[in-house]
């Protein structure tokens, strides 16, 4: 069942690739849309069959692939991966729908988009470390080409920078996976937390450090973030939507699944530092966004800040904060995608994204009133105003993290205030006031321009009013994620001959941080 989510887009790519010459762009687009739409519908079907009360992997698939390498085709879906797979399906469909129908080199463009969709879905579903790494790396190729071929004027620089950063990220992740397998003496790259948690804490720190930097580049966290604004600015709108909406989530997903999942003891010890890192990212991203005069760069830096909330919630590692991390991933995916779509429409119609040039676009007759209204809704959601999904996720993050890391959470709350500052600056400059001279005669905005952002706006409000539709899929998984791992770790430690000496050092850090037990007291 899960394989269909990977193979349907690949089949679509084959159909586009071997389509009759000359390929009409509209036909290629239709095939891509039907393929990703079909994948998304299939994800909804899986959602309907998903047992929300079960914590473990569901719809599991196993196939031995390259046995000597320890590579198996293991797929599984739980409350952590399901929302992200659904988000990937939805946003890829929206990205294809929002793209220009007369895109140049349509065959390659849609093949790459479908490959990207398949590889990201596969990475979210992979239950073998090497399989995850394989798809994590495969996803780089289409994205690199999508930025490098269909990007802006400085696309070569942006694409190369993206590739270098993400390749380094991949090397670190591979090193960590190889290290885990070699040090534990495992016969395969299967996802087995039992073995990694039996490793000495020093080795765990080393491996977790590699994962933190590797996934930290992908998220991205300060100071590994500089590839993101460049990539966003140079990428076309659909690629920006996918980059912010889905691809950054691979980093946070990896941190939760592999960082926290494989090394919970080391995670518990490093948690205060991770929370401080998260607060730094949130504030740095917010301050950087304030300083920007390019709308797209501002939204890109806001993404860096908002992804920091996920790390904060993950660092706290309480059932509530882990649920908040999943919510924040989905919420940021929807809101950032919506904002990038709207910035794309503004750029397409006015030819500029500069805050120094644009003004008065909310003008009801000669401006972009509906786009402006949607943008106001989007920035309100991003600032965490009640009634929208941004509020639910940020409130859950703060509620879940505050009892554990009060200072870092308060600093992150300042980041939310700063979000309102830079987005109000954006809205005030671009949409209010008298329509500026250079953007007087704008081309008409069609429903095809508005519809993708309207769908996302509806979801942002709907999930804000009814957050249960989002959280009930992940609640059981996040509630049992850490306790299950810690129980495994305790068993593993109990089996060691030098258990006593280990317990003196790290056994106490196995106490789950909760509202009553702060890490400072337990670690």
């Amino acid at each position, binding site marked *: 069942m899960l394989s269909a989510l990977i193979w349907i887009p690949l089949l679509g790519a084959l159909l586009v690739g071997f389509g009759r010459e000359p390929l009409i762009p509209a036909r290629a687009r239709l095939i891509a849309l039907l393929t990703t739409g079909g994948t998304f519908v299939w994800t909804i079907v899986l959602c309907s069959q998903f047992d929300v009360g079960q914590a473990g992997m569901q719809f599991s698939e196993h196939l031995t692939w390259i046995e000597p390498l320890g590579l198996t085709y293991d797929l599984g879906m739980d409350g952590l991966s399901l929302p992200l797979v659904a988000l990937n399906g939805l946003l890829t469909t929206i990205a294809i729908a929002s793209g220009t129908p007369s895109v140049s080199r349509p065959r390659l463009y849609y093949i790459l988009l479908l490959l990207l969709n398949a590889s990201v879905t596969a990475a979210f579903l992979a239950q073998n470390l090497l399989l995850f790494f394989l798809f994590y790396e495969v996803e780089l190729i289409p994205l690199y080409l999508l930025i490098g071929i269909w990007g802006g004027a400085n696309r*070569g620089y942006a694409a*190369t920078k993206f590739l270098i950063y993400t*390749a*380094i990220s991949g090397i670190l992740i591979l090193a960590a996976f190889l290290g885990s397998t070699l040090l534990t003496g495992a016969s395969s790259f299967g996802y087995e937390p039992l073995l990694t948690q039996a490793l000495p804490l020093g080795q765990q720190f080393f491996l977790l450090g590699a994962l933190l930097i590797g996934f930290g580049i992908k998220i991205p966290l*300060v100071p590994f*973030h*500089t590839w993101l604004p460049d990539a966003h600015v140079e990428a076309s709108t659909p690629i920006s939507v996918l980059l912010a909406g889905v691809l950054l989530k691979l980093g946070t997903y990896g941190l939760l699944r592999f960082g926290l999942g494989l090394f919970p003891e080391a995670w518990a010890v490093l948690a205060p530092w991770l929370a401080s890192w998260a607060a730094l990212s949130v504030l*740095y991203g917010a*301050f950087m966004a304030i*300083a920007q005069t390019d709308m797209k760069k501002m939204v890109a830096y806001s993404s860096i800040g908002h992804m920091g909330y996920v790390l904060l919630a993950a660092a706290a590692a309480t059932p509530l904060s882990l649920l908040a991390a999943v919510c924040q991933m989905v919420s940021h995916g929807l809101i950032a995608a919506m904002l990038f779509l709207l910035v794309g429409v503004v750029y397409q119609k006015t030819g500029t994204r500069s805050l120094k040039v644009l003004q008065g676009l909310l003008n009801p007759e000669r401006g972009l009133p509906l786009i402006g209204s949607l943008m106001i809704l989007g920035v309100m959601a991003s600032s965490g105003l009640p009634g929208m999904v941004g509020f639910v996720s940020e409130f859950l993050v703060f509620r879940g993290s505050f009892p554990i890391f009060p200072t870092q959470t308060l600093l992150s709350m300042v980041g939310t205030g700063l979000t309102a500052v830079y987005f109000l600056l954006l809205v005030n400059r671009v949409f209010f006031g008298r329509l500026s001279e250079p953007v007087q005669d704008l081309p008409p905005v069609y429903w095809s321009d508005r519809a993708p952002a309207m769908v996302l706006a509806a979801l942002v409000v709907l999930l804000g009013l009814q957050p249960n539709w989002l959280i009930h899929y992940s609640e059981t998984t996040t509630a049992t994620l850490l306790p299950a791992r810690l129980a495994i770790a305790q068993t593993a430690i109990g089996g060691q001959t030098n258990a006593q000496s280990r317990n003196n050092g790290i056994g106490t850090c196995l106490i789950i941080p909760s509202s009553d037990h702060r890490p400072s007291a337990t670690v």
Partner: protein
Amino acid sequence: MPVTTTAFVVASAGFDRHFTARRFLGTAAGYGRLLDDAPWLVGVVLVVNALSALNLTRVFRLVFLGAPQPKTRRAPEVGWAMAVPMVSLTIVTLLTPLMMQRLSLLPDWEYFNHTAAFLLVLSGVVGCWSGATVYLHKAWSRSVHLPWRVLQDLLSYDFYIERLYEISLVNGVVLLARFSNWCDRYIVDGMVNFLGIASNFQRREPEVQHHGAVSSLFAHDYGSGEPLGWGFDLVRMVILE
């Protein structure tokens, strides 16, 4: 503009009545005690009540009463999109006391403080009377005496809170944002770009010597300052070799 006029009158009366009613009813017991414990605070409440009545009555007198001015002679009533919420809120304002009574949200009459009620009604009446009759000469709006001007400015600019806010918080945020931007551009990103360029220069010579045609492409890239060249070179160096 009958709808706007009615809405303004009801809203002003409702605002003043709400203010008064809160003193009468909501905090009647506390108010009675306040009268004994801190009479100066009662004075503040009465002055505020009188001033709000004065201001609202004065605005109503100046805007809605008197002879029409050139700009108000042909003032049309507002459109339905604005009239509907105005009329709805007028009705809600008028019905609020009844709704509160129905929901038993009002305290019993035994808690009614007669002295407080009398003083508040009196302050409201004085305020309304002053607003309706007192003519404020234009010369008064800007005194020629420096101390009065300072006081006037202090009050009219809300104790300069906005200016203070601008100097302290807004400037602080702007400075921090500029500093972060500078650090990001020249230190964080600058270091990455420097590493890339440095690796290019380090590898340029051997590339030209050993790889012939391919290396000349990269050598051209370095010469023209294209980042693509050093990027590919770095990727190749890290991944392939």
